[in-house]
């Protein structure tokens, strides 16, 4: 089991860095559909046992992905209920597949709701700063464009691939945009009307786990009094007690000076943690919240959902 958890952790981290958490969950649910179709075990109890093991693995990866835990716990709960247990042997697979597909649909529907809730922010004639590799933020901007809103985007430059994802999408949308290195933003403070961010998760410490570099930018604009908005699906919330162990990974590697024979250690961090109070508003699929409202909402969700496997720590 330990080996599998390690393997899944690495796989999820790679995917999350590449496509973001939302698409990771979507991709995993799609993979689950194909896997169930190909699964040829004799009976449903064998499936349920193995699905339980899968849920255990998913709830113990490093880091834990709230959105995955949400989807897989939801499915497990259904497979454990009386109705499913009473299903005849010939039918169970079809029912499971149907349910996974429904959850995938519901999941996509939640994303749509979040985008619709973003209407509350008036972006007409405004200049918006974006930075992270957030599919949610890009979808929100696409929605505004579709609604005929006129706005400009400034992309704060960071990792090559992440910046290029933003550039490609803005270009495709036909949104006027500029790119500026993240460390030069102080020169354009006055030009920016609002800042948009997406997040990986919200911990019970009320810290958002976000792309590296975001904490600095948010602090910078907070000082300037520019509103910073967070766009996040509530299914991404980490509804369990945070472990003492850090959720931020540090990568050390050796580098060489490009002209001189100097070797040095370069350190990179996987994520930033940003307190929820640093945001003006948090736009979710379940509504738009102020930081205080979000805290109350989060606590309510914590009580409602019980993720046994991820409680300890």
């Amino acid at each position, binding site marked *: 089991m330990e*080996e*599998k958890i390690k*393997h*899944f952790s690495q*796989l999820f981290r*790679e*995917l999350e860095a*590449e*496509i973001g958490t939302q698409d990771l969950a979507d*991709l*995993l649910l*799609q*993979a*689950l559909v*194909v*896997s*169930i*179709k*190909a*699964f*040829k*075990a004799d009976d449903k109890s*064998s*499936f349920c046992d*193995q*699905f339980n*093991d*899968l849920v255990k*693995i998913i709830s113990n990866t490093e880091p834990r992905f709230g959105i995955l835990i949400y989807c897989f716990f939801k499915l497990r709960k259904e497979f454990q209920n009386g109705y499913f247990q009473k299903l005849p042997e010939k039918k169970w697979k079809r029912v499971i597949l149907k349910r996974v597909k429904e959850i995938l649909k519901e999941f996509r529907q939640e994303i749509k709701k979040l985008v619709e809730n973003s209407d509350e922010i008036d972006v007409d004639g405004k200049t918006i700063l974006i930075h992270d590799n957030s599919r949610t933020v890009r979808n929100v901007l696409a929605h505004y464009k579709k609604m005929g809103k006129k706005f400009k985007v400034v992309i704060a430059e960071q990792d090559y691939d992440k910046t290029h994802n933003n550039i490609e999408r803005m270009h495709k949308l036909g949104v006027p945009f500029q790119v500026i290195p993240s460390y030069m933003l102080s020169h354009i403070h006055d030009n920016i009307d609002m800042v948009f961010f997406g997040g990986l998760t919200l911990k019970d410490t009320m810290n958002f786990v976000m792309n590296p570099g975001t904490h600095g930018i948010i602090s910078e604009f907070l000082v300037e009094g520019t509103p910073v908005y967070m766009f996040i699906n509530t299914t991404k919330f980490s509804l369990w007690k945070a472990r003492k162990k850090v959720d931020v990974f540090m990568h050390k590697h050796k580098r060489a000076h490009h002209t001189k024979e100097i070797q040095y250690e370069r350190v990179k961090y996987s994520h930033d943690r940003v307190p929820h109070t640093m945001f003006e508003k948090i736009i979710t699929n379940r509504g738009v919240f102020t930081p205080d409202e979000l805290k109350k909402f989060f606590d309510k969700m914590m009580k409602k959902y019980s993720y046994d496997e991820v409680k300890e720590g």
Partner: protein
Amino acid sequence: MEIYLALGIFAVAFALIAFEVFDKSLIALFGALLMVILGVLSPEEAIAAIEFETILLLLGMMILVNIASKSGIFEWLNVKIAAFTKGNPLFIFLFFSILTAILSAFLDNVTTVILIVPLTIQLVRGMGKDPKPYIMAEIFFSNIGGALTLIGDPPNIIIGGATGFSFLDFIINLWIPILAVAIFTMLVFVILYWKHIKPISDDLIELFTANIVIKKIKHEFVKKTIHRDFVIKVIAVLALTIIGFLVQHQLGLPNYVIAFTAAIVLALMTAKRHNIHESFSSVEWTTLFFFAGLFIMVAGVETTGILESLSEYVAHSTTDIFFMALIVLWVSGLVSMILDNIPFVTVMIPVIMGIQAELGGSDVTILWWALSLGACLGGNGTIVGASANVISVDIAKKKGVNITFIEYMKFSLPITLGIFVICSVYLFIKIN
């Protein structure tokens, strides 16, 4: 004196090539130059010794394959097959091995493994499995597939250039042993590595892992820009090229004209999508120069009469063609396990020509097929037996999968000897 010079130059060059002291093209070219400078051959004889048909066929195919690969069609094929397997290790093993064999029959083996091995490693390692058996199978199948056609492997190109055998001649005469060898190799791999490749359809977690990796690969591929028109043109031209090779006699055109026409027509058709400078600079000029140098050196050795004597010796030592074919098969096979098969085949061409001349009316075409099978399939014997082996192992090493010489040979040697036995049986049946 010239005899000793020619033999000396060739022997030293052969040793330097075998031990990879310098780049083999430099050694071959320097050897060729020495043959001319020291008077073994006149400059005119040296130029005449170069088989431009062979070099042009290689050149045409290199340009054609380079343009075709830029279209993304081969990656597309890889991704489709990965998706089709639905994460079943046995299917991944079978389909990728078969794909390697098919592609190797029409592309050069090195291009094939460069396209397939990295994806296999990503897929199999992503599933948490050991990619070694898969890579070793792909090495084997690149050499097996390459042996099937005139353009599949350099020894066949040289044999085709020397004998005038058509594309179809190769397929007609070699498909049976190649199929038998492929089935044998596949069975041995499946039996030996069953633990690694057995189906996982009753293991939900393994299935799930595999399908995540496949989705990831698909996602990465979708991000790449593929131009439909480019792909369609490539498919059309590749299909026409293969048809052209198949009906070569009816067309009355040599192979190299067909390959070159296809390359240039495709370059013209895709000029907007692809820069021809890139294709020309990607041509493996070192390989072409190596061939040119080698042809000249062998011509130098021919002037000594030693190859003629060797042919006479073989022709007079036995009248049994099957026995001769066996010698050609096993010697070329064993030599190709360790040494570069191209110089060996180049030397063997005049020897077999000589035997043909010595035996007059007897049909010795079987000797060519024995040479082709031995030289192409012998490459499987060791890690250094063929360029595709070396490249595959290098790619694997860069990705953290280390296949050692002994580790490979422990497995490859018995299978390769088994392959020779199958080929021997085929030669026996064909003669009788």
